[in-house]
């Protein structure tokens, strides 16, 4: 990739394409927008292969973080373009999703993890992690006191950390 080798880009796509697309789709819930965001993610790496280096941690985690923020940016642009508010979803991977598109046994892992949390903690995590909202934006969106939002997010993430550590 550092030499602009298309076969390296294809290899990266083979290895991470479904994960990157899965992340983009989870944020955007739209195949067309998710494809754009996933493609943008790979293009960022193509344009600047030195963007990642080993000090930034595992390549896969870094690439998925880039994918998440790219998809969130796309979501914000879409909200501005359409003038519609962000839809509050009850579940990140909803029952209406096309499960045939989801690969592997890990498909319900996120869903299972999030369902271990009380509804109010799960909801603030979804808004922060998958829709890119800050503390104050979540408080405005949910019409909840800022302190309550901060506490719910902190406790929810603490619980997620414990759940992931115990696996």
């Amino acid at each position, binding site marked *: 990739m550092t030499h602009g080798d298309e076969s390296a880009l294809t290899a990266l796509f*083979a290895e991470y394409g479904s994960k990157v697309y899965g*992340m983009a789709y989870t944020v955007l819930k739209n195949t067309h927008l998710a494809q754009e965001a996933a493609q943008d993610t790979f293009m960022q790496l193509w344009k600047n292969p030195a963007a990642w280096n080993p000090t930034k941690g595992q390549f896969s985690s870094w690439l998925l973080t880039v994918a998440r923020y790219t998809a969130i940016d796309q979501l914000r642009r879409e909200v501005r373009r359409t003038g519609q508010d962000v839809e509050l979803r009850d579940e990140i991977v909803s029952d209406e999703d096309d499960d045939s598109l989801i690969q592997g046994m890990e498909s319900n892992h996120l869903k299972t993890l999030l369902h271990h949390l009380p509804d109010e903690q799960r909801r603030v995590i979804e808004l922060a992690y998958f829709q890119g909202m800050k503390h104050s934006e979540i408080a405005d969106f949910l019409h909840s006191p800022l302190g309550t939002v901060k506490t719910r997010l902190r406790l929810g993430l603490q619980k997620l950390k414990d759940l*992931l550590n115990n696996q």
Partner: protein
Amino acid sequence: MRDSEHLRELIPAYVIGATDADETRLIEAGLVDYPELAEELREYQRMNDALAESVPAMMPPPEMLGNLLAAAREVRPAPAIKVLPRPTPRRVSVLWRWVAASLTLFLVLSNAFWLYRASVPTVREIVFQGNPEAELIGLRCRIIVSSSSESAIMIAENFPSLDAGQAYQVWMRRDGGIVSLGVFRVNAQGDGLLSFTADAINQPFDSIGITIEPLDGSPQPTTPSVVRWKSL
């Protein structure tokens, strides 16, 4: 307020990018003043990584790889090595210049090599030589296997469209038995993608065939292969 306990409480939100701008500034300054918070930060970064990895992988639309490669051809990647401004000229012996240049070249090449090795897997491509019927209608099929990857991807091109309830199913014949590698559908241009574990393709096999089956696939092939590839 910038006591360490308050900062500790903000770390989980900071790691996932949910802190407001003033809170972010507070934490970033506090991490310098309170080095004991670094371990807390690392723990939540590990959680953040694990959370990202738990998001379900999904099969991208078949045209995505083609679109990505087309976009990549439009833009060449930026050079990884920056050209530094020329230093103020000084009198240096020719021999010393050669030693310095050789050392610099060695360091650049070795760093570039290790960065490349660490970030990009090498790739192996298997192109299907189809049966005459497949060749006649221009079906193309290839498998990309990444050396460091646990997955392989099959790229199908020019495949005929199918009815709504049908899909292409990929079969591998090995040791007298037959196993399914998965099902895929194609878009209006006849392009499709299927990813499967690289183990399947890295072990010796006799042949690969693709048949038309119901959308959920069949336990065994029920129609003749539209394309076959014999292992050499």
